[in-house]
C-alpha cells in the first residue's frame, strides 16, 4: 500500500488518510482499542461534548429499523472538564488525531466551549449544530442560515483550530446552509447528521423511543447523504466530509467521488468494529487497482 498517497488536508487539518470515525458512534476511541491501532485512523471524532455533564434522554434510546437504526441518546456526555482531564491525555499519548464534536444551547456556550478546547492534542473542532435529540439549541442552530452565520463567525473568533461545521439534513436547502457556514468562516463542512425519524409499536400504540422521535442512521440514509454531499460539494469551495450509512470501502469511495475529501464511519462501528480500518485498506486497494497514486485524483471525479 506504500505506493498510494491517502493524505488529505481538511481546511488546515492534515489527515494521514480520509477515514474518520463519526461522533457518538466510536465513544472516545479508547473503547475500540482492542480492534485496531487508533493511530492508523485518519482521526477520531469524539462524542458530542457540552460545557456541563449531561445525563441524556430516558430509555429506550436506540432501536433497529430497516437497514439502519434510530437513536435518541440526547448528548449524554461527562462534560468538557472531564473530557480534558480524563480522555484527552489518553488520546494524546496514543497519538490519535482527535477532533472534538461540540454541542451547546447558545452562541455564548459554543464560544466558551471552543475556548476551553484550545488544547494541545486537539486537532480540530466539529461544530454540532445538527443534533435532533436535544430540545434547546442543537438542530435549531443548523436549520437557519442566520443562526448558522452567527454561531460559526462567533466560534471562529474564539478558536485557532480548524473548524468543521456539521450540517443537519433536516432542512429544505442544505446548499444554502452550507454557503452560510462557508461565508461565516467555516474551514470545512461535515454532513450529514441523522435524519429525524420515529418508530411506533402498533401493538401497544406507543412510541418505541423514550424521546418519541430520534435520529435515523445507517445504510438506509446513504442515498440521501450522498445526494446532499454532492450538492454541497458543488456549492462551496471548502472541503466536505461525507457521512451517512458508510459500511464499506465502496460506500466511502462513492462519497469521495461525489466530492467528499474525507468520510466518517458511524453506525457501521456498532455492527463491525473493524469497519473503519477495513475501509482504509479498501480505499488504498481501489486506488491501486485503478492505477491511481493519490486519493486526491478521486475526489469529486463524478462523471455525469
Amino acid at each position: 500500500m506504500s505506493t498510494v498517497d491517502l493524505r488529505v488536508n481538511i481546511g488546515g487539518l492534515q489527515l494521514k488518510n480520509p477515514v474518520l470515525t463519526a461522533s457518538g458512534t466510536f465513544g472516545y476511541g479508547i473503547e475500540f482499542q482492542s480492534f485496531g491501532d487508533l493511530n492508523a485512523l485518519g482521526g477520531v471524532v469524539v462524542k458530542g461534548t457540552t460545557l456541563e455533564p449531561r445525563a441524556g434522554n430516558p430509555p429506550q434510546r436506540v432501536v433497529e429499523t430497516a437497514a439502519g437504526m434510530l437513536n435518541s441518546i440526547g448528548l449524554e456526555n461527562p462534560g468538557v472538564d472531564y473530557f480534558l482531564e480524563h480522555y484527552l491525555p489518553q488520546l494524546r499519548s496514543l497519538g490519535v488525531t482527535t477532533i472534538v464534536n461540540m454541542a451547546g444551547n447558545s452562541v455564548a456556550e459554543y464560544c466558551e466551549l471552543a475556548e476551553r478546547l484550545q488544547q494541545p492534542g486537539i486537532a480540530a473542532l466539529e461544530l454540532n449544530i445538527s443534533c435532533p435529540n436535544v430540545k434547546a439549541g442543537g438542530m435549531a442552530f443548523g436549520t437557519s442560515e442566520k443562526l448558522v452565520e452567527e454561531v460559526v463567525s462567533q466560534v471562529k473568533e474564539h478558536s485557532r483550530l480548524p473548524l468543521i461545521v456539521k450540517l443537519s439534513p433536516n432542512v429544505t436547502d442544505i446548499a444554502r446552509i452550507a454557503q452560510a457556514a462557508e461565508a461565516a468562516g467555516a474551514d470545512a463542512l461535515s454532513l450529514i447528521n441523522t435524519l429525524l425519524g420515529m418508530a411506533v409499536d402498533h401493538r401497544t400504540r406507543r412510541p418505541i423511543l423514550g424521546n418519541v422521535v430520534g435520529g435515523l442512521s445507517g445504510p438506509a440514509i446513504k442515498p440521501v447523504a450522498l445526494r446532499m454531499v454532492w450538492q454541497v460539494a458543488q456549492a462551496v469551495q471548502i472541503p466536505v466530509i461525507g457521512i451517512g450509512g458508510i459500511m464499506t470501502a465502496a460506500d466511502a469511495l462513492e462519497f469521495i467521488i461525489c466530492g467528499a475529501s474525507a468520510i466518517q464511519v458511524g453506525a457501521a462501528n456498532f455492527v463491525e468494529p473493524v469497519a473503519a480500518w477495513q475501509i482504509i485498506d479498501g480505499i488504498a486497494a481501489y486506488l491501486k487497482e485503478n492505477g491511481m497514486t493519490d486519493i486526491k485524483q478521486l475526489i469529486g471525479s463524478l462523471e455525469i
Partner: protein
Amino acid sequence: MISSYDAAILENQQLAPSIWRLQLDVAALAQQVRPGQFVQVRVTNTYDPFLRTPLSVHDCDAKAGTIALLYQTVGTSTHALSRLRPGASVNILGPLGNGFTLPPARSNGNFALLVAGGIGIAPLLFLARELVAKKVSTRLLYGARTAADLTGIDAFEQLGVAVACCTDDGSQGLKGNVVDLLAGYLQSGAAGDVYACGPTPMLRALQQLVRSKGLAAQFSLEAYMACGLGACLGCVVAVPGGGYAHVCTDGPVFKEREVEL
C-alpha cells in the same frame, strides 16, 4: 480482551417451541469468559437485521473450547439465528460486560439462590457450574409460562443443583410466578445470595422481596443495545439518585440496590 471471533456452529438445537441452544467452537473466548458476560452475535451479513444481537453465555467448556447460547425466537434476528446449521459460522464479539460476582472459593455456609423467569434461565447454567465448582450450595427457582417452556432443567440437576419450578398455567410445579415461589421457599427461614435474570416486572417484584428479607442480590439486566461496547450510550438503566448506568459496560449484572427498575 474483547475480540471478534468467527465461531463455527457445532450444534443449533430446538429445545422447546421457541427456545434454541447454539453451541459454538470458539476456544479463545471460552478460555476467558465468566458467568454473566455476553456476546454480540452478527446473525447475517446483510443489513436486515442490521444490529448485532446480544446473547448471554449460557454454558462454557473451557477445555473443549466451546460456549453455548440459549435463545428465544422472538423476532427477525433470533429467527434467522435458528435457521443456521452446523458447519456454518457466526461472527461474535466478546466477552462483553462485567459478569456475576462470585463468592470466594470454599466459603462454607454460602447458599446461592438462582432465580430465573423465562429465557432469563440463559446466563444461570454457566453461573451454577462455577458456583458448584466453588462448593457453594446452589438452588434454582425457575418460572416459565408453561411446562413446555421450562428448558434445560436436567443440566442443572446433573450439577447437583436443587430445582423448583413454577408455571403461569400450573402445567408444571407451582402455579404462579417465580417471585412467589421464592417467597414461599424463604418462609421456612432459608436464606442465600440471590442471582436473578428475567423480565423487568419480575425483577422489580424480586427487588422488593429481597429488600424485605435483607438478602444480597445480583440482577442480570437487559436493555436495547446497539454496540455492546460502551460507545453508543444507548443501553441505559436508571440509577438511584438520578442519571443512568450503561448495561453493556457497567452491567449487565448489577447489585439489586444499584438500579431503579
